[in-house]
């Protein structure tokens, strides 16, 4: 692990200061969590801060803090820095990049307001011209509602269009976790319509509305299962050209045989509609060997172009 420089540590201590309001006690654990440090490191920081202040460095000129029983006690106003310091250029860049990754582009009101209040002379527009951690900027509004639903344990009513589906469905979900997979955001949830855990891609959610209905998180933790192939049915596919097969396109796939240029692969699938569409999209260069119902679904889909194209 890289050792912290004096400058890094001073920066961390300065970032702590506006959380130290006079007359309050703050859990050491929470400060440690916020700053990505261990409680003992933050305790050392607090001890060092208690030795800092302004001339002439009499006791009343020093930062009035001490740690006791895992709590940071602040017993007098700070000599300075009672407000948060603005973001440095690097911090503003990191925040703008993170917001962009979550669907809040440089001109989104959230990004604009946040950077205007917290950062001096930083342009998220300019950053987006050189570094983009997301391609689209369309999921921000849905993201906000789902994030609040998760924090407050309240259900969210969504209008969703599943991949390959020809219509939208309205459903009430218990949102459990937001997940980014290769740049796309998903919400792992318990779907009350399906009566089962489901994962929804955010750019397929047309609208999301927070309800007043409170839910309890499932005790065995349904979140985190979203991309696990465990327990999913498996289809056997044949690809005419082994080079045309990419594991990145078929999560959890396993090559079982190769005959000349062709390849047989077992592919886990969560929905028949999805795998039928993926195979149909190969336009005859891939085939479902089994199961029969998936083979039939592919045949049905391709038989009527209006099924495929709408």
């Amino acid at each position, binding site marked *: 692990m890289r050792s912290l420089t004096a400058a890094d540590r001073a920066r961390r201590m300065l970032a702590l200061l506006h959380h130290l309001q006079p007359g309050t006690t703050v859990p050491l654990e929470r400060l440690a969590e916020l700053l*990505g440090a261990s409680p003992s490191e933050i305790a050392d920081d607090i001890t060092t801060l208690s030795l800092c202040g302004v001339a002439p460095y009499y006791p009343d000129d020093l930062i009035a803090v001490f740690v006791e029983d895992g709590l940071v006690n602040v017993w007098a106003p700070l000599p300075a820095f009672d407000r948060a310091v603005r973001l440095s250029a690097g911090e503003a860049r990191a925040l703008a990049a993170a917001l962009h990754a979550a669907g809040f582009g440089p001109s989104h009101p959230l990004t604009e307001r946040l950077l205007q*209040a917290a950062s001096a002379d930083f342009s998220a527009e300019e950053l987006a011209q050189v570094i983009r951690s997301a391609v689209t*900027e369309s999921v921000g509004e849905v993201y906000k509602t789902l994030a609040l639903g998760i924090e407050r344990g309240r259900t969210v009513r969504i209008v969703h269009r599943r991949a390959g589906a020809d219509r939208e469905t309205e459903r009430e979900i218990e949102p459990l976790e937001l997940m980014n997979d290769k740049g796309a955001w998903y919400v792992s949830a318990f779907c009350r319509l399906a009566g089962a855990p489901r994962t929804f891609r955010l750019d397929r959610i047309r609208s999301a509305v927070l309800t007043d209905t409170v839910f309890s998180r499932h005790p065995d933790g349904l979140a985190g299962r979203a991309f696990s192939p465990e327990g999913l049915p498996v289809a056997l596919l044949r690809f005419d050209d082994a080079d045309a097969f990419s594991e990145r396109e078929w999560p959890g796939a396993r090559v079982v045989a190769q005959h000349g240029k062709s390849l047989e692969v077992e592919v886990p699938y969560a929905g028949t509609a999805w795998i039928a569409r993926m195979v149909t999209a190969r336009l005859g260069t891939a085939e479902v060997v089994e199961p029969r119902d998936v083979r039939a679904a592919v045949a049905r889909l391709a038989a009527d172009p209006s099924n495929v194209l709408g």
Partner: protein
Amino acid sequence: MSDATERLVNLAMYLAAAPQAASAARIRAEVAGYPSDQDEAAFLRMFERDKDDLRAAGLAIEADADGRYRLDPSATFASEISLSADEFAALRAAAAALLEDPAFPFSGDLRFALAKVENTLDVPEVHASAAIADECPDLQGDTVARLAAALGASKRVTFTYTNSRSQTVRHKVEPYGMFAREGRWYMVGRDVALGSVRTYALSRLSDLVVNSARPKSRDYERPADFDVSAYIRLPFQFGDEPFEAVLRIDADITWRAQAITAGQGCVTEDPSGGLTWTVAARDRNALLRWVVENGPGISIIEPPDLARGLAEGFARVVKRHA
């Protein structure tokens, strides 16, 4: 270590509390931590480093015409940050996810940013995760961070690159921008030997060296009109046969248009409430496949033979699954 940290915090406190600008000599006398037996030149070097360190933490330290220093309070301290509950929730979720993602290149700065903008310590547990890159995320994140530093300072970089034909070549490049797409980070830059702007997948790059000569001077100027989004392409925009495609997006999925088009091409409304999307393409088969994968609701208008190709492809699928 402790002395240097204390000195930096003391200097920050002094500047924030000082009623007026102060000379370097006065600061030396009044800020605890500057050695009294240090010669003038050594003190000035230390003081310069200290100011740089505090500026990197966000402090706006100014010098007046007489060489006296003060903190600009309006540029140093944040205004009140007024976000709604859902905005804070979104910020926390995005930050929590990306802080733990090794492919996100700015996690150190993001942590400090969040600590500064968060106005309460009493926050609920955040449930969010991220995996921007699925191939060597640590390596990609580290490479992006180093390239971002090179890009910010306009320093040339050299690296070894293995292309999709397994050819390995050493390149010298002026980085112009970077983007993440479909699990990979890419760098766009001008290849000095080739004299043209190229895109490099960072997972194929190794032995990166940033030019360290004359660190405070720029090696190159990025074109003023550069926009990295022009280099983010859809799967059918790679290939050797450029053509223009016109696609129709049905009225009931126009709300997904931004996600579908990824900002590429030209979108116009048609009388039926749908959208007509004109977009550059380079691979016919990849476009056909993309249309099917992203449908229903997307159809090909031009070129007409491509639409026929789709119908022929469906016939092959039916025949194989009969």
